């Protein structure tokens, strides 16, 4: 047994282990139990998540209004139309990436910063945590509503405060296509920062407190301590935070669905998930076309997910 080390958890000891073939020690009953324990969830996951995903992939090559069984194979037509003849598509891609960039630059670092501060043993930390975490507790639909009454052009908090609710000087927070995405992003960040704060706080709690202490004894200032010692030692949680941010950005839906309206794309607020919903869930759905958008989103998501998975699970293999 290798003695545990008190050094940074992040610094890996090169301990290789000889695989102990525990499997052999399992009784038949144990094997049955294990099979059931893993089999049922895996089956459910495969049937309800992966089978439909693959079906969507196939549907994206068809033309289908979602009614009856008149599914027609159309090859790449949906993709061609999507790229060339769907004005909302490219803005949607752009907006999703703006969303991503903004999240990575603003609420995510801010949430991490808050977590770092709250992790210091200070008074009232529970109050601060709770206050900031509150937006995370309420649904995005309610978040959307709460910000609606802030952004409302006539009666909203902002325009009432600024006096910009008169003919001639309106600020149309949710209508102006140059402004509305940012307005929504502020609302989204309000929640996202809370989310990241909690995740990161959890990570920090698991970190060896001796680390930053050692660094500060060495004379590093707070910023240096964080950047040189804390941040690198938090690599696993950093990855999770990054992935959560990326996925939340690409999957962004509820908030815009509530604040931007649920029929058709609003200029300035086109998002991938919304376009999929508009085409797939609607009075006269175009399943094939909507699925093609879904596949594009899926591919973008996978491009993000795969390096993450490789990164995370490479270690498993070494064990």
């Amino acid at each position, binding site marked *: 047994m290798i003695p545990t080390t008190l050094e940074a958890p992040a610094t890996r000891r090169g301990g290789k282990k000889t695989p102990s073939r525990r499997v052999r020690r399992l009784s038949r009953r144990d094997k049955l139990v294990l099979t059931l324990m893993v089999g049922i969830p895996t089956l459910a996951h495969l049937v309800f998540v992966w089978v439909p995903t693959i079906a969507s992939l196939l549907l994206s090559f068809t033309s289908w*209004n*979602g*009614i*009856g069984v008149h599914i027609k194979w159309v090859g790449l037509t949906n993709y061609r*139309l999507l790229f060339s*003849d*769907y*004005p*909302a598509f490219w803005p949607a891609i752009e907006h999703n990436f703006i969303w991503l960039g903004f999240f990575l630059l603003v609420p995510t670092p801010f949430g991490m910063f808050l977590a770092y501060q709250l992790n210091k043993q200070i008074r009232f930390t529970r109050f601060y945590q709770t206050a900031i975490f509150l937006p995370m507790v309420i649904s995005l639909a309610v978040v959307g509503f709460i910000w*609606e009454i802030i*952004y*409302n*052009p*006539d*009666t909203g908090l902002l*325009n009432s405060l600024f006096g910009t*609710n008169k*003919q*001639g000087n*309106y*600020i*149309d*927070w*949710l*209508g*102006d*296509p140059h402004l*509305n995405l940012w307005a929504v992003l502020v609302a989204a960040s309000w929640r996202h920062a809370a989310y990241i704060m909690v995740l990161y706080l959890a990570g920090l709690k698991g970190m060896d407190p001796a680390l930053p202490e050692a660094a500060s004894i060495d004379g590093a200032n707070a910023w240096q301590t964080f950047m040189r010692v804390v941040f690198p030692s938090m690599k696993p949680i950093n990855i999770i935070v990054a992935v959560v941010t990326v996925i939340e950005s690409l999957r962004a839906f509820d908030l815009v669905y509530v*604040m*931007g*309206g*649920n*029929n*058709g*794309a*609003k*200029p300035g607020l086109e998002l991938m998930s919304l376009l999929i919903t*508009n*085409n797939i*869930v*609607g*009075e*006269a*759905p*175009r399943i094939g*076309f909507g699925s093609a958008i879904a596949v594009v989103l899926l591919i973008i998501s996978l491009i993000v997910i795969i390096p993450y998975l490789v990164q995370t699970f490479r270690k498993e293999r070494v064990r």
Partner: protein
Amino acid sequence: MPHPIAGRNVSSSGRDGWGRALPGGIPALSRRTMLKGLFGAAGLAAAAPVLAACGGGSGSSSSSSSTDTGTVTFGSNGSDVAPKSAYAATMAAFTKQSGDKVKVNTVDHDTFQNTISTYLQGTPDDVFTWFAGYRMQFFASQGLAHPIDDVWAKIGANFSDATKALSKGTDGHYYFVPIYNYPWGVFYRKSLFQAKGYEVPTKWDDFISLAAKMKSDGLVPFSWGYGQGDSWTPLGTFDYLNMRINGYQFHMDLMHGKESWTDAKVTDVFTHYSQLLPYVQQGAAGRKWEDAAQALVAKQTGMFTLGLFVAQQFTNPADLADLDFFAYPEVNPTYGQTSVEAPTDGFMVSHKVKNLAGATKLMEFLGSGAAEDAYLAIDNANVAINSQADTSKYNALQKKSVEFISQAKTLSQFGDRDSDPGFVSNVVEPAIAKWLGNPSSTTSTQSTIESQKSQYFTS
């Protein structure tokens, strides 16, 4: 002929494995006639399983019972307080009259509309609320609705020919029973017009100069708001302008994808539309129409092009009495002011109806004057279509609406009801919303719509 009965009498599970919604099946009338005959015959029940075994491919999709089981299910989008209690009253009246119970399934109106397709293919109720026009015909032609010619044989006398036409699918069968409609017009406050000496315009130029006068008087001429889910509101103006400039037929053909959106006639519509824009309330892209209406309530704005439902925003009875409307002004004398936009709401029977006999009874009742009266006694922001309805208790707006609609030569439903709903919500509405932000982009707006049109209308 296949065995149309198979699917409907037997499957106790309430759904059959195959033939849901295959359009263009057997003509409904003959099917029903045959059904009646067959069900009359003794011993059919015993034969049913045999029929079921070979009836897999039939065009029939419902599994309704021949006899009234005493309960009819009713899917309602009337989630607001007024329609909800109005439907409740209507159904209570039906129960009283027929002895049948009605199980109401209320889903909020947005969700109801957005999920109508999955709803109808899933586990729909026997009778459901829907809209007349193309929007109804679409689902009828997809085989998701049950034809109701037998109902119309009884209630036909209560309705005008125009209404009858509105209730038929493209196959000529009836699918729809209307309950009410409401006109779109230009709403204004009588007291404001009186105080300022404004006159109701009937011609386009007068309309524009009235707007200019209001502006110089410090008013905002038009209430305006198409924020959030309300991107349909600018269509009202578009529809009216198109009908005033190019006539009803062109408008319908355009909405049905038969005319080109790049046509100079459409350009003309946008040109007129843009003349209004200097006079509209700003901040509209983020404003819901309800808030825009509040400006009319507060007399900050002079006019509002909207449907009669704007009256629901006038919660103070004195304000409501002060509300009036006029017909959308004439642009092209050829077409005058003869077309009225009057969306019609009503009911359909789903193709998976379980209690067909009960549903038929309910539909017959809904086509009666008594149903109209029960409904409108509570929801007074609409007007009856049924000629048997009692109009004596109407308020001034309702009375005017009835007259207004009856004088129209042609009735349109509304942009999103006269066309493919997907085309309108995913193509036309975003394009118009974008154009409103940048009215100089007319040409590209037209070509954007036109090029996407073929994705929805395959000729």
